[in-house]
């Protein structure tokens, strides 16, 4: 143990630790990669689940859904982020582990910090006797264990868990992609997706803008515009062709209706003339022009079936509306909105109208037809059930579906839940203080009552016969014989004295 160490003992010890250093650094890098993989699996699962449920909810409630590219993008961002984080952390840990090789070797070999202490004392140039002895001790220990494995951080990510999480995430992604019904956000109109439809509409509007301003005629308030190519020919560009085919197929079935519409239109023309005088000669439509316009109206109705344009509340009495409907296709100045905006608003229709049943759709169509024929009509066919005033509390999807504000409290927004203040966190409630009454005055009520004799028939006490001597406990202690006579005498004297005393007292009073 008296062996001393060379001057470059520190360098030599550091070089002896090289083997362990490589191990430690590599282990820290591997640990950070494993940690990253663990996070990756969990992240893919979370994103997959999120994607799936968002699609599911959007299909249920008709809200805007998530497209596939968003899901893939999220997963991509997550993977790249985790890889970056793992790299940075691994780098930092490897750097830290580099300085801990001796300590880790001590830990793994249970050498009681001999090596790390020796290196530290060498660095600090500890010159005490015990310090030097500790250096030598550490040197010898390192020579013995330099080939051994140092203590390294082992991260057990659980490959099965990671893989199952990752696969689960991918599975959910696929489920969301192929098995969940498409939401409104991904809805096709005919065979056309919404995005394409928008493009189409913009093309249409461009076409309108390019054409003769006299040909651009506004629709009714709902923005039901008649798009025509300049010259009155329907547009055949792009997907429109597909749509127009559909419309044409509908024309035959709607033939009957067009007749009545024609007559109604004639009736309403008189009103429109008075109200939309500004439209001038353009307001008068030729009978030959009527036919394509009507067929287009029907086609538009089919579009509306899918797009579920939000309906604006309309006053049937409004004379302008009646006029504008009758003067449809003739006046270009009565509409304040551009056709493009109105179409876009159709595409972004909200959930309240989207959730209507197929039966309601039919009703709406009927209403539309009425409008087209004679302007706004009273909603005679509104067969929606009357508003319920059921007092039961609604929860979950019932609550979401409660568009008409049925139930407790009637219409007027969300319903308040009933509860007590203690149900809300943070409301101070006076607690029990040990040894102290709760705050507040203490009221004591005292009743002043005296005992009263109760009148009535009561059972009278009976004169019981004297018990036998052995049974009567009192008699056992009574004096007998001469002692009894003596006691009797004493008591007579005592009572007579007391009697005399009382008599004297009375006399004095």
């Amino acid at each position, binding site marked *: 143990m*008296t062996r001393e160490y060379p001057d*470059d003992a520190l360098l030599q010890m550091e070089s002896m630790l090289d083997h362990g250093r490589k191990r430690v650094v590599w282990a820290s890098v591997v640990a950070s990669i494993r940690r990253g993989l663990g996070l990756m699996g969990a992240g893919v699962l979370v994103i997959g689940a999120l994607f799936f449920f968002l699609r599911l909810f959007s299909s249920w409630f008709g809200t805007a859904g998530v497209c596939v590219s968003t899901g893939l993008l999220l997963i991509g961002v997550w993977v790249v982020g985790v890889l970056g984080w793992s790299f940075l952390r691994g780098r930092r840990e490897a750097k830290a582990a580099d300085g801990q090789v001796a300590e880790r070797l001590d830990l793994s070999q249970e050498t009681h*910090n001999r090596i*790390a*202490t020796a290196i530290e004392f060498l660095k600090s140039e*500890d010159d*005490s006797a*015990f310090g030097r002895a*500790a250096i030598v001790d550490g040197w010898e220990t390192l020579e013995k264990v330099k080939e051994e494995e140092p203590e390294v951080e082992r991260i057990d990510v659980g490959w099965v868990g990671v893989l199952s999480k990752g696969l689960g995430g991918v599975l959910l992604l696929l489920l969301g992609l192929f098995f969940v019904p498409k939401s409104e956000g991904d809805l096709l109109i005919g065979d056309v997706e919404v995005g394409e439809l928008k493009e189409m509409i913009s093309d249409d509007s461009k076409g309108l803008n390019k054409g003769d301003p006299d040909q651009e005629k506004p629709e009714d308030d709902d923005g039901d515009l008649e798009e025509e190519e300049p010259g009155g020919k329907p547009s055949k560009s792009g997907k429109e062709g597909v749509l127009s085919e559909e419309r044409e197929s509908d024309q035959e079935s709607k033939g009957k209706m067009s007749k009545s519409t024609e007559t109604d239109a004639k009736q309403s023309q008189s009103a429109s003339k008075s109200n939309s005088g500004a439209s001038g000669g353009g307001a008068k439509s030729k009978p030959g022009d009527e036919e394509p316009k009507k067929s287009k109206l029907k086609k538009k109705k089919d579009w509306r079936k899918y797009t579920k344009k939000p309906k604006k509340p309309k006053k049937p009495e409004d004379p302008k509306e009646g006029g504008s409907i009758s003067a449809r296709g003739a006046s270009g100045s009565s509409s304040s909105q551009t056709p493009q905006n109105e179409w876009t608003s159709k595409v972004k229709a909200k959930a309240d109208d989207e959730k209507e049943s197929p039966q309601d759709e039919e009703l709406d169509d009927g209403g539309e037809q009425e409008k087209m024929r004679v302007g706004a009509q009273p909603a005679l066919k509104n067969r929606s059930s009357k508003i319920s005033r059921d007092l039961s509390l609604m929860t979950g999807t019932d609550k979401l579906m409660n568009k008409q504000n049925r139930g407790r409290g009637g219409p007027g927004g969300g319903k308040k839940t009933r509860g007590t203040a203690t149900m809300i966190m943070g409301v101070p409630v006076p607690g029990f203080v040990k040894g102290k009454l709760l705050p507040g005055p203490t009221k004591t009520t005292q009743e002043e009552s005296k005992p009263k004799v109760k009148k009535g028939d009561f059972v009278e006490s009976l004169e019981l016969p004297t018990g036998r001597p052995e049974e009567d406990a009192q008699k056992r202690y009574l004096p007998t014989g001469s002692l009894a006579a003596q006691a009797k005498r004493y008591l007579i004297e005592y009572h007579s004295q007391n009697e005399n005393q009382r008599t004297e007292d009375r006399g004095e009073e």
Partner: protein
Amino acid sequence: MKTKEPKTVEKSSAEASEQAKHFCEVFQKLKTEIQKAFVGQDEIVENVLSVLLSDGHVLLEGVPGLGKTLLAATLSKTLNLDFSRIQFTPDLMPADIVGTMVLQETKGGGHELKFQEGPVIANFVLADEINRATPKTQSAMLEAMQERQVSVGKQTIKLPEPFIVIATQNPVEQDGTYPLPEAQLDRFMVKLTVGYPGEDDYLGILNRTTGVSVSDVKSVSTGEEIMKMRQIVREVPVSEQVQRYAVRLIMATQPGSKYASEAINKSVALGSSPRGLQSLILMGKVRALIGGRYAVSCQDLADVAVPVLRHRVMLGFEGLSSRVSPDELIKEILESVEKLSD
């Protein structure tokens, strides 16, 4: 790599090595001698000797009949030191411990006040059932234990060296006792819990105590040697890594510190003081020397952490109500605190 010629062997290093060797030998001799009378309980004996060599005091806690008083008495015999035993009772007064001024007649017929030494002025003080005395009397021990002196009137008397107090207390009979205040508890370097002996130890106790022969304990060391050994203990170096570990251990007992676990924050009202840290390191140094090493390791500190810290961890209301043991908390700390440096 070029290796330079080894340095010439210096005396100091060899001397340190010899001193450490001698330390181990004396320690083993003392232990063997004590175990002639006190059967079993190796850990307790080692810890009591470590405290003696680290210049501290011991609080022994255990039910009656486990040999607490025997251990203290045997230790004093092995060292051939002055031994005094004070039985603490509720009516014991401070003057009964430290001594008092008494009026004495001089040769000339006059009178003078003379200090009559109390039992605390000895090398070895056994404070038996210390928690039975009133706080006033208990506090009389404070100065003796920390400053190694007693003050009576205007007179201050230095206590002899080595000085060690071995106090005992019974954890069961708590009626009519005065639990030691934190200030006094902190002055004990360790609190050792004496448990029941093992099966073989019982046989050893029977053989040694119920026969004709009585175990003869000899003196194997002296007070001077103990003082030298205390000096050796102080010379043992501690690396920064180990120091940091000790600091983390102490801070982990303090609720609200960055190393404190959730259990500590919840259950502990008061953690260890810096005096606890000093005790931890000194005990660790003795542990390193008896392990044949020249520097303290983290494991040395971990080995002595429970006896050093258990009476310094004061449980709060929640800890007491949930019957959390300080020993368990300290073991939890030992598992959670990182031994590697940052």
